[in-house]
């Protein structure tokens, strides 16, 4: 085989990594490179250094160590039976690339994953070695996210957590049936087992740090996972409930939803068609509702269409919920508790906090609310203000039609 250049390898291994949606570089400890011999800092908020034309941010150098894999998962471009071009980085190549990108301020750090070669343990060792070299040999203090192989030795995973800010294990498919069909070598029980062990490890280290200030940190940015949407039969209701139980059981920071993208040279089961981007977007919105707006999974599931089990695509799930629960509206901006304001479609967390702070000093009128939010039009039917009462609006049968955006073509053809 011809020797590949670093650039060719980088292109192959970045291409192979792009189906993973995760890019966050936030939520870790605050640290910087002063007093050290290397570079790197993390200050809580992540930074997106560039955006690709697919609208996704580029925060980390997201690559695979190798795209060779002994598994044959149908949805994956790197599966054993795929005829994609293979490449492999040495640990040192990844370290050098990360540092030279970081020095030029292209990235916040590294997100390293890998196809499984030889054995899960062997693969995990290679990943850990990259993180170790960055931290110990180069005193790198930027962000590191390592993909964890569920079947690897717990001892290796412990080492990974000592170097990395975030660890993640992908559940891949929302249903057990889907996993069995599309990723026959993976096992839902083992994946969740590994997530549970990660959670326990994080809690142990957290306890130790409360007692001893110098106890080592373990993956301070927590763990996350990813589900592929649209490759198996799971409807939105099932996905939301699965995500909610993952948040509860394993204390996940994030669940990423990735609309199944057609991959070159697909397996027979997977047709080449447009990824369900709008559905993915609605799932993220419902995820936000669970994490920041105080809805539980059952409430969001109730906003899905009873027959198809999917969230409406033309309106957001919060509005869908409100339209089904019209008796809870309108809400008085001057009196309602925080929880009730958070349920008003169109009011975000920041706007609600601003309303709460302002109304201590004045009776809010509709104009005041307009200054605190981005759009008042959507809000009006659901709010009572000092000078506004939406008589009958909430009860109108055509309210949904009035609030839903007019049908437009998908944004796939818009040019810049």
């Amino acid at each position, binding site marked *: 085989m011809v020797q590949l250049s670093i650039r060719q390898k*980088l*292109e192959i291994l*970045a*291409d192979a990594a792009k*189906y993973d949606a995760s890019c966050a570089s936030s939520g870790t400890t605050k640290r*910087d*490179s*002063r007093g*050290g011999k*290397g*570079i*790197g*800092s993390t*200050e809580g908020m992540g*930074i*997106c*250094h*560039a*955006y*690709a*034309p*697919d*609208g*996704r*941010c*580029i925060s980390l150098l997201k690559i695979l160590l190798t795209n060779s894999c002994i598994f044959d998962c149908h949805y994956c471009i790197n599966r054993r*039976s795929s005829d994609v071009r293979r490449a492999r980085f040495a640990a040192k190549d990844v370290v050098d*690339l990360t540092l030279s*990108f970081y*020095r*030029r*301020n*292209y990235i916040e750090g590294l997100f390293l994953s890998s196809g499984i070669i030889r054995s899960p343990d062997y693969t995990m060792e290679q990943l850990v070695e990259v993180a170790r070299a960055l931290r110990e040999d180069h005193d790198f203090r930027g962000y590191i996210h390592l993909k964890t192989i569920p079947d690897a030795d717990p001892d290796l995973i412990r080492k990974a957590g000592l170097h990395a800010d975030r660890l993640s294990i992908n559940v891949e498919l929302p249903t057990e049936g889907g996993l*069995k069909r599309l990723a026959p070598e993976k096992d839902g029980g083992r994946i969740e087992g590994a997530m549970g062990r990660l959670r326990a490890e994080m809690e142990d280290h957290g306890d130790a740090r409360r007692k001893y200030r110098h106890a080592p940190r373990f993956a301070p940015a927590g763990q996350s996972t990813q589900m592929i949407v649209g490759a198996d*039969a799971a409807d939105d209701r099932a996905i939301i409930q699965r995500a909610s139980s993952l948040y509860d059981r394993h204390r996940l920071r994030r669940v990423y939803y990735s*609309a199944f*993208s057609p991959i070159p040279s*697909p*397996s*027979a*089961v997977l*047709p080449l068609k*447009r*990824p369900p*981007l709008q559905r993915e977007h609605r799932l993220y919105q419902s995820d936000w509702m669970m994490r920041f707006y105080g809805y539980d999974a059952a409430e969001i599931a109730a906003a899905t269409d009873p*027959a*198809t*089990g999917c969230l409406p695509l033309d309106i957001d799930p919060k509005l869908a919920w409100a339209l089904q629960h019209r008796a809870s509206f309108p809400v008085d901006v001057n009196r309602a508790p925080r929880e009730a304001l958070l349920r008003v479609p169109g009011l975000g967390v920041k706007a609600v906090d*601003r309303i709460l*702070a*302002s109304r*201590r000093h*004045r009776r*809010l009128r509709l104009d005041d609310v307009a*200054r605190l939010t981005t759009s008042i039009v959507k809000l009006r039917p659901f709010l009572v203000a000092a000078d506004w009462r939406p008589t009958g609006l909430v009860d109108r049968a055509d309210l949904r039609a009035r609030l839903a955006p007019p049908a437009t073509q998908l*944004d*796939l*053809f818009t*040019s*810049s």
Partner: protein
Amino acid sequence: MHRVTLTAPDDFDGWRDAARRLSNHDVDPAEVTWQVGEDGGDLFSDAPLPPERPGARFSVPRAFVDMAQSAILHRDPERFALLYALLWRVRTQRGVMEDKADPLLRRVDILAKAVRRDIHKMRAFVRFREMEEDGDGGPTSRYVAWFEPDHHIVRANAGFFVRRFAAMRWSILTPETCIHWDGATLTEGPGAARDDAPDGDPVEALWKGYYAAIFNPARLKTGAMLSEMPKKYWRNLPEAALIPDLVAGAQAREARMIATAPRPPARPPTPANNSGTVWAAVRDEAMRCTRCPLYRDATQTVFGEGPIDAPLVFIGEQPGDQEDLAGRPFVGPAGQLFDRALEEAGVDRASAYVTNAVKHFKHERRGKRRIHQTPDAGEIQACRWWLTQELDMVRPRLVVALGATAARAMLGKAVTISRTRGAGIALENGAEGWVTVHPSYLLRLPDEAKRAQERDRFVAELRMIGARVQALA
């Protein structure tokens, strides 16, 4: 009239000092003008700044100081006056900083927000290029960037780059100020021009390669990119030069997909000869399907059956009482009629794949009998997922929908059978679709003569379909 001259556009300390003195002497905001630098003569007879009152207490809420420190960096020339007006309000009225609906506070908040965003974007979009310079122990590297901020943020932002790149020697050049770090101290210089910065770096080729490879052309979403990375930043981002080509390429790819999709011939080659295994796996998954509520009352999922490379697929409505118990499609009375009709038409039943639009038996219990009920649009839509999977695996040349439910599942919309039957329709998956009646319709016709007539028509259509499959093969 008081005129205050600040030393620099981001001179927060100077503004604070002056504002404190003016405020202590109760100078009304309308009585003060603010300017930066030495320019501006004595247009009006300016009163000197009142002296500091020794020992005067002066306190403002923390939130005000935070907001003022950001807002003062804005390029809006009115910012100093706005901040002093806000300070005046803060000093005379309680709770001003919490009343977010107040127009003045809102205006200053918007300034502060714009500055914070600019600071954040500078941290994101500064791109260093490596150059050689003479160090203490021979040649060494310096990383130099050219950046054009919207507001006066460079000095305020220097700390971030020091913390991040402590062990590196770097310079950030901007039109207004330049900052330099040598590994130990930060120095400032006058503004520079773009040509003062290096014009390239070999690592940029790698970075561009990465940028192009990490982009997924299947999910083009330029609006999302533009809102976070507006075009004004593009000229200083090496990777942005690639964007027009990447977008055009993705659009061409999408157009190709759409142009080639409805063309019937040329069955795409099966990537791996594992369709039997895949079919069994999909069937297993369907056995546990809960996509619609029908699974609750049905005995089991009745999946399709037949050769997986069949050129012809028949779609029925849903399993009936007998199919539900047997777990196989088309075994009840309608199935038997269908078999006989196929035989008469000379179509080989064994070479066709048969399945149903809805895979669970929908019924209503009346005494001991389970009475068939027509599935509704939601149930058809929920189950269409499985039908699509089956058609993707079998890849037939011709698909026949028996009855209105099947036609709806095949075409994705409701159609009238009488108006669609008798001719082929191009389907999205490349196959040819035909619509005819469901055999149970023939069983239900009360009038003998009419039944015989309809049956002949059904057989005649099946014969046409058989001939069409031969022709397409």
